[in-house]
């Protein structure tokens, strides 16, 4: 039995993170956060700027250490999981290495795993075909459009076939059409590769479209205030975006965001739709 079937992809328990503790600019970036991501599950983190989304992702990636609490990735400590490359990571900026070809960029994590040249090249080609860039193997990153660069970054993140993908606003810099296309591609790829995902975003429709669960966060201090289950099934396409069920989920996430941090219970019958705002606008678009 494969280990990722036994362990949760991510288990965050009682985690807090304080930056600059004791100094005048102390920041309680995260307070007492619990989060479990099941294998194969797609979880989005949403919330206003500064609520600690990136911090939570970086804790899971073991790029920073928690001030207290415990992070497990695929049943291992976060530090061991990083050393074993149990996850792949992608950011808003593609962060490709300009002096390497597209294929060599995808090969980089494999080089550091000590794979031989032939195996690396084969895997890089396989991954680039997965993101539909098989014809651009020998191109330089700066010869590609923003959306293509981001696809290379995703191919790179998945190159070692990690069971977990960590993404911090990866489509934030793309135009709306490219963005929707990339979302559909990401769902297809994650389904094909059975990868679990923790995905940070500012956009409510993006979170709803992609996720099995949307984790709603709130700042000062950063914490999880709500979790919205998105039971729209796994087969999502462009029609999903026009579904009534899709709109209802958007409104639900939006309300959760509005109420984040306040202990007001919302009576759904009496909510004025105009007060809720347009369901398709993101948190930061107000």
């Amino acid at each position, binding site marked *: 039995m494969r280990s990722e079937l036994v362990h949760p992809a991510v288990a965050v328990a009682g985690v807090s993170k304080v930056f600059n503790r004791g100094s005048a600019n102390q920041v309680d970036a995260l307070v007492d956060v619990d989060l479990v991501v099941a294998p194969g599950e797609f979880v989005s983190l949403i919330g206003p700027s500064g609520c600690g989304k990136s911090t939570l992702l970086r804790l899971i990636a073991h790029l920073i250490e928690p001030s207290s609490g415990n992070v497990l990735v695929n049943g291992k400590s976060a530090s061991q999981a990083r050393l074993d490359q149990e996850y792949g990571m992608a950011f808003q900026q593609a962060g490709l290495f300009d*002096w390497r070809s597209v294929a060599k960029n995808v090969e980089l994590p494999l080089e550091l795993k000590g794979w031989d040249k032939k195996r690396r090249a084969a895997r890089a080609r396989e991954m680039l075909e997965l993101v539909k860039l098989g014809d651009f193997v020998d191109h330089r990153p700066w010869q590609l459009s923003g959306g293509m660069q981001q696809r290379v970054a995703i191919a790179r993140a998945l190159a070692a076939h990690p069971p977990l993908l960590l993404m911090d606003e990866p489509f934030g810099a793309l135009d709306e059409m490219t963005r929707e296309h990339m979302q559909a591609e990401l769902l297809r790829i994650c389904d094909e590769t059975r990868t679990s995902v923790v995905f940070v975003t500012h956009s409510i429709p993006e979170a709803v479209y992609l996720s099995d669960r949307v984790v709603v966060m709130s700042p000062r201090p950063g914490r999880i205030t709500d979790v919205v289950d998105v039971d729209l099934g796994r087969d999502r396409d462009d029609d999903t975006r026009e579904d009534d069920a899709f709109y209802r989920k958007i409104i639900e996430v939006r309300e959760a965001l509005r109420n984040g941090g306040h202990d007001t219970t919302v009576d759904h019958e009496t909510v004025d739709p105009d007060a809720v705002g347009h369901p398709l606008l993101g948190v930061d678009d107000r």
Partner: protein
Amino acid sequence: MTTATLAVGGSARRVLDAVWPPALFGVAFLVIWEGAVKVFDLKPYFLPPPSSIWAEFTGNLTLIRDAAWVSGANAFVGLLVGTVLGVAVSFLLMRFRLLNDMVTPLAIALNAVPIIVLVAVFNNMFSSTSEIPRRLMVTLVVYFIVLVNVAKGLRQVSPIHLELLRSYAATPVEVIRKARIPNAVPYLFTALKIAAPAAVITAFVAEYFGGPQNGLGSRIVSNIAASRNAVAWAYVVGACLLGLTFYLVSIAMENITTSRHHTSRGDDSRGSGPGGGTT
């Protein structure tokens, strides 16, 4: 194949377009110079005409070539040693942050100061027939230019690259090999483009401070002292050609590597590409 041919044709065309305006200007300048000397009857000790400078240049070609060889060797040796030292020390600075904080501001300041006057002190340290003081001087000038730039290239790596490498569990040595060194390569060539002409200038000027009388700089001085103005100017022409050679070679080296590494991209996501020499 056709695109390659087109590209070559295109770049040849661009070179031609870039060359003819200054070439035309240069020819016009020489014609006016020649005419002014004739019209105003300027004395040769004041300003010799280009025609007699050219005559002296072709007439003394072997002498000028030998002198250029001496100055060129000084510049080249200093350039080589200074570059090697500059690169080596910038690696040390990368390794020891405190050292970097102490040395880099000093190196930047020294780039803005005419340290060439030190050659008088160096001359005093070695025998009067030695080329070492001049080479030492060139080394020093080149060293600081290379140090400042390469240290910057090794340090200013994209934070995203560093985080990615950490997520791949890269060792510190791997971070240096996969990110810092490739990032510093264009900075090194920027430094060489500044350092190559500076090396030649330093080699000439250092000769004005004494030492053996065999280089272009010394010959210019001694011919002026002997009132052989046109000959002095012929050596100036030699000096210009030598400086140009060093500069063109440094540009060619940069072009060869950039066409392999970083080609002209529209936007630099890191915000700051290889910077100027002394900032």
